[in-house]
């Protein structure tokens, strides 16, 4: 990237994070204060974003591999507000000191990064790289601040969303009700939006977030993240360890089912009992999330809750049914869940009894659930590192594996040390972060990792248990995960990670990551896009924390945001940079199999029911085990399923809808099969109004009867009738498969089949298949 291009970058960063745009009118001649602000801005936007956070911070920080060096940095993402600004100033000063110090006429900073002067991290920045040029430019600025100070902001850059058209309130309402409640908007919701516009949305959302369907969606969305449904085997045997629940976990085998009938009926009932019980066991973690959100509890409880959720069935497995049965409204409902605090585990042998200063299991929200342990198991060699990695990803939004950087010869560096994970810089980068958290899980080791201390004690050739440089006190070991959860909840990255989770639930994709390739000609545009989204994420996160971690507020904020509402552009742009900036803007989410089923149910009154099992996987679904990420773009196989769905759903519903009284119809309340195009102006008008209605119901479009879109659908209907008229020997009845369930059978003028073709056409369109 050329220096001139770099100087035009509009970056709004703080530790690759929150930002305040300096507008054109703020550009002033050099003054001391302005210079300082510009210097910080330049450092933040150029040096920190492109080099510091990626190449230096992992080692040069308190607790890092290079904490003893002269360059010790602060991580701005771990603080907020003024503290974050202060961290950036601190980092700028530290870099400037290093840049100003010379060794034989060369800047110490430039020598170190290229592996000279015995740099522990070796040559982290090659001398011919773009990163090096950024640092060299910084060194020049440090030596000559007046001569080189310049604004890094493009004074001509328009606001980020300039020219982006936002979705209107009616369509936004439909998007929200379908996404979060799996239904179409009600008349009263539409009236509220018509009257008050966007201002009506918070109250509507409050009501939606009380509906049962919202909690189905919430659990589904968070399972996409935590994947706790993806535990292999029968949950009664995997979630509940034999060592601690041997007398209770198989309760269903002896449960009295005599009321079910004869032996065969009892066997069938027992299968169902076992199936429901296992489903309920797997559901416990996501029910915890539901409970927290439904009861407006601080969302930090996902790492601090001193309870788990149990149903009448799972309570029996846990051996606490008698203790909690009074709390259930319906003790026969396998999926009614209530919170409960377990007692410390009692093993079959004394050695396997759980340590507890209180006599209770040290619950730490999801972290300490048996399901989380089993979904992310450990081994003698993995040593809880998978758990630690997932912990960072799930609760702090950090991909620890990405902390490691390329080095000139990783193998040689590794081979020098007897314990590379504690001694080799490129290993320590990750392991100094990862291993202490792995140590916090140390007592969840035996019995497939559910609970139990490792024989011989915890590993000595690992960094000791703790969190981010703080050691776990010995007295806290029995409640290590609670200790970890308490620190997690206070870490600013927690709120950010949760806001990103909600974004992924709403958008179907992860929040943007900082672009890494600074040689990319579109790098500055991608950075701008990242930072714009980052600003939204962090702004919502700050308010989320201030609200007492009210997750519903996060949903409301995202729905109101430009990121959720962006719908189009006023004018086409071919400028690659602007297109790169807007590349991720617009929801454009291909509906998942589950969402698709709900949408069909909302529009047609009945789910399709076929997007399950293998077909769901083929349609990009997940099984939470092997396949854990949903497909975001349609393959040919998915295109084929869309065609089947559009054909089949239309087949099932069109003739049936016409068989109902007009007032009860979902698709054709204003037209009869006898109305033909071209018969009269009145009939054409009637057909057009029917199409307008269908467009709204199926596609969420609000088209005028004389619009081009309605023209196209009208023409489709009319031309099919014309073609049919020209066919010889055509059947006067609807196709056999499409006249089931009380549907209209006779179709003398082919209108029912033509309307079915219209519905098929609409179901294949992006407005239906995407959110």
């Amino acid at each position, binding site marked *: 990237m050329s220096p001139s291009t770099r100087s035009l970058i509009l970056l709004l960063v703080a530790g690759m994070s929150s930002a305040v745009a300096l507008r054109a009118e703020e550009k002033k001649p050099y003054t001391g204060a302005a210079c300082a602000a510009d210097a910080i801005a330049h450092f933040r936007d150029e040096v920190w974003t492109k080099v510091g956070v990626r190449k230096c911070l992992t080692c040069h920080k308190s607790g890092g591999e290079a904490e003893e060096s002269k360059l010790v940095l602060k991580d701005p993402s771990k603080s907020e507000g003024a503290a974050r600004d202060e961290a950036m100033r601190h980092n700028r000063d530290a870099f400037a000191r290093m840049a100003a110090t010379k060794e034989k006429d060369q800047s110490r900073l430039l020598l170190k990064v290229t592996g000279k002067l015995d740099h522990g991290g070796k040559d982290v920045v090659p001398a011919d790289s773009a990163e090096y040029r950024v640092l060299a430019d910084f060194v020049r600025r440090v030596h000559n601040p007046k001569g080189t100070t310049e604004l890094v902001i493009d004074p001509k850059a328009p606001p980020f969303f300039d020219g982006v058209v936002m979705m209107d309130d009616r369509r936004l309402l439909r998007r929200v009700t379908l996404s979060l409640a799996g239904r179409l908007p009600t008349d009263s919701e539409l009236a509220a939006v018509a009257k008050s516009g966007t201002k009506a949305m918070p109250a509507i959302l409050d009501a939606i977030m009380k509906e049962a369907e919202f909690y189905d969606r919430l659990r589904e969305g968070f399972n996409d993240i935590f994947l706790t449904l993806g535990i292999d085997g029968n949950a009664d045997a995997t979630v509940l360890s034999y060592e601690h629940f041997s007398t209770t976990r198989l309760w269903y085998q002896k449960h009295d089912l005599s009321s079910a009938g004869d032996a065969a009926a009892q066997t069938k009932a027992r299968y169902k009992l076992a199936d429901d019980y296992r489903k309920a066991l797997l559901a416990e973690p996501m029910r915890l999330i539901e409970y927290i959100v439904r009861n407006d509890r601080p969302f930090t409880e996902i790492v601090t809750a001193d309870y788990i959720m149990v149903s009448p069935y799972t309570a029996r497995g846990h051996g606490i049914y008698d203790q909690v049965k009074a709390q259930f409204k319906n003790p026969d409902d396998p999926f009614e869940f209530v919170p409960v605090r377990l007692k410390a585990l009692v093993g079959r042998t004394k050695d396997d009894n759980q340590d507890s200063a209180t006599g209770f299991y040290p619950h730490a929200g999801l972290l300490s659930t048996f399901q989380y342990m089993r979904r992310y198991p450990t081994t003698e060699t993995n040593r809880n590192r998978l758990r630690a990695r997932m912990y960072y990803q799930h609760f702090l939004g950090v991909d620890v594996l990405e902390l490691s950087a390329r080095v000139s010869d990783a193998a040689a560096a590794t081979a020098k040390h007897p314990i590379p994970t504690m001694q080799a810089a490129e290993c320590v980068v990750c392991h100094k972060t990862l291993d202490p958290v792995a140590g916090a899980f140390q007592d969840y080791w035996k019995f497939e990792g559910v609970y139990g201390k490792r024989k011989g004690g915890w590993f000595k050739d690992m960094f000791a248990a703790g969190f981010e440089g703080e050691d776990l006190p010995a007295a806290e070991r029995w409640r290590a995960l609670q200790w970890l959860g308490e620190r997690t909840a206070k870490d600013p990255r927690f709120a950010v990670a949760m806001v990103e989770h909600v974004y992924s639930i709403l958008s179907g994709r992860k929040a943007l990551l900082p672009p890494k390739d600074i040689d990319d000609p579109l790098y500055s545009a991608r950075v701008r896009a990242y930072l714009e989204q980052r600003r939204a994420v962090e702004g919502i996160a700050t308010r989320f924390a201030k609200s007492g971690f009210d997750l519903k507020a996060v949903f409301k904020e995202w729905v109101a945001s430009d990121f959720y509402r962006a719908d189009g552009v006023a004018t086409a742009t071919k400028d690659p940079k602007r297109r790169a900036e807007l590349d991720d803007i617009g929801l454009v989410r291909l509906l998942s199999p589950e969402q698709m089923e709900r949408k069909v149910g909302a529009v047609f009154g009945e789910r399709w029911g076929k997007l399950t099992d293998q077909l769901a996987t083929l349609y990009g679904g997940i099984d939470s085990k092997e396949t854990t990420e949903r497909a975001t773009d349609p393959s040919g196989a998915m295109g084929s399923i869309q065609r089947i769905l559009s054909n089949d759903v239309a087949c099932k519903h069109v003739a049936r809808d016409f068989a109902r009284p007009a007032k009860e119809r979902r698709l054709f309340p204003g037209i009869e099969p006898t109305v033909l195009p071209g018969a009269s102006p009145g009939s054409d008008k009637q057909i057009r109004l029917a199409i307008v209605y269908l467009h709204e119901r199926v596609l969420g479009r609000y088209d005028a009867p004389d619009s081009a879109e309605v023209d196209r659908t009208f023409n489709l209907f009319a031309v099919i009738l014309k073609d049919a008229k020209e066919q010889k020997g055509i059947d006067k009845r609807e196709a056999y*498969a499409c006249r089931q369930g009380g549907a209209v059978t006779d179709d003398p003028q082919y209108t029912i089949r033509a309307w079915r073709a219209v519905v098929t056409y609409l179901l294949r369109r992006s407005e239906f298949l995407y959110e």
Partner: protein
Amino acid sequence: MRRDFLKLCGLAGLGLAVPFRASESRAAEKKDEPYAGPYYVVFNASGGWDTTYLMDPKGVNNINRLFKEGDILTKGAHKYAPIKKHAQGGMCNEDFYTEFGDELFTFNGLDYSVNNHSPGARYMATGKLDSMAYPTFAALVAACRGPDCPLAFLTFGNYSATGNLVAMSRVPYLPSLKKIALADAIEGNERSPYHDKFALDRIEEALREQNATAGTSPRLPRVERGENMLYAAQVNSKALQRVSQYIPANSPKDRLAQQAEIALASFRAGVCVSANLTIGQFDSHANNDPDQMKLLPEFLAGIAHLVRRAGELKIRDQLVVVIQSEMGRTPTYNAGNGKDHWSIGSAMFLGRGIKGNRVIGATDEKQFAVPLDMKTLKVDKEKGVRVRPEHVHESLRELAGISDHVLSKKFPLGVPEKERLRGFWG
């Protein structure tokens, strides 16, 4: 009508105002035909394989407990580890090299540069370490060679990013393809179409018009990409009906063979360009030798299955096979008899355009990479270059004839001219 659609498809996913080049338009005109090859298959030994028990045997410095240096076997230019006595199932090296050595090309001394699974997997799959946006080679070649194939890029796991160029297809079971092959017929029965043919034709026509009209309106890049990919997916999906005839009556039991059968049926039907096949659990931090002796033979058996069955299906001469992992294993055993992550390893290749019976590059007696003279392809400790994934990917793009494709240029690998591998494929 088909050509208009193809033009849209060619741009689908680009998200950039990239001119559609004349040569690609000409190629697109023929796309009603089944895609006839080459077919690209990338085998991934996920978790990190022990190359010293396969194509880069050592037998010294306690690197291998199962054999000594003098036990190392050869087949033509290849040296390989003797594992017949220890292999648990699958196909041992001895049999693999006997059958495929003449067409196998090995590169040793590849510098993965990182010691971590996910960055390593990304780097090996894309040739780019410092970007999350790059497509895997398999996705890129699918987008360049056959964007209108309904299952252009098949994946069964491992890193599978597409760079928004082409949709990723996951087909978990062969029978599931049968279910969707005839989408416009009730229960897949060709004699019971949902719509009369004239009505279906009108539906398709309306959809095409609607898509073309949408293309004339200003749209967000993401909307444009989504609508184009959706339209392409639906129209292209009709070619899936060709797959049914190639689905074998019985599905094999082995993991890789199952994946291979899905890929082969799709190749043979002309609906697929590339497939990413993978098995995991190579991460042998404990008990390295028993684990590798189970997994390497399973891996080789999967490769052999693919190549043999491709022969039966008469498409073997169109196969290009890349065999790789995201890292190697250390030259020393840890306290648990395992081997940890090692950033040096190997890759193997065979198939169309690749001269076999060759080994290029090397590791030394301590399993460190030896730099390579990129022109002579001889090791040169002093002036050579450490060969990294981007070098190999640059060569793969050349092999596939897509180096200058507009989509490849969108994702440059940044290999300087002087560092390009010359004559790599023989």
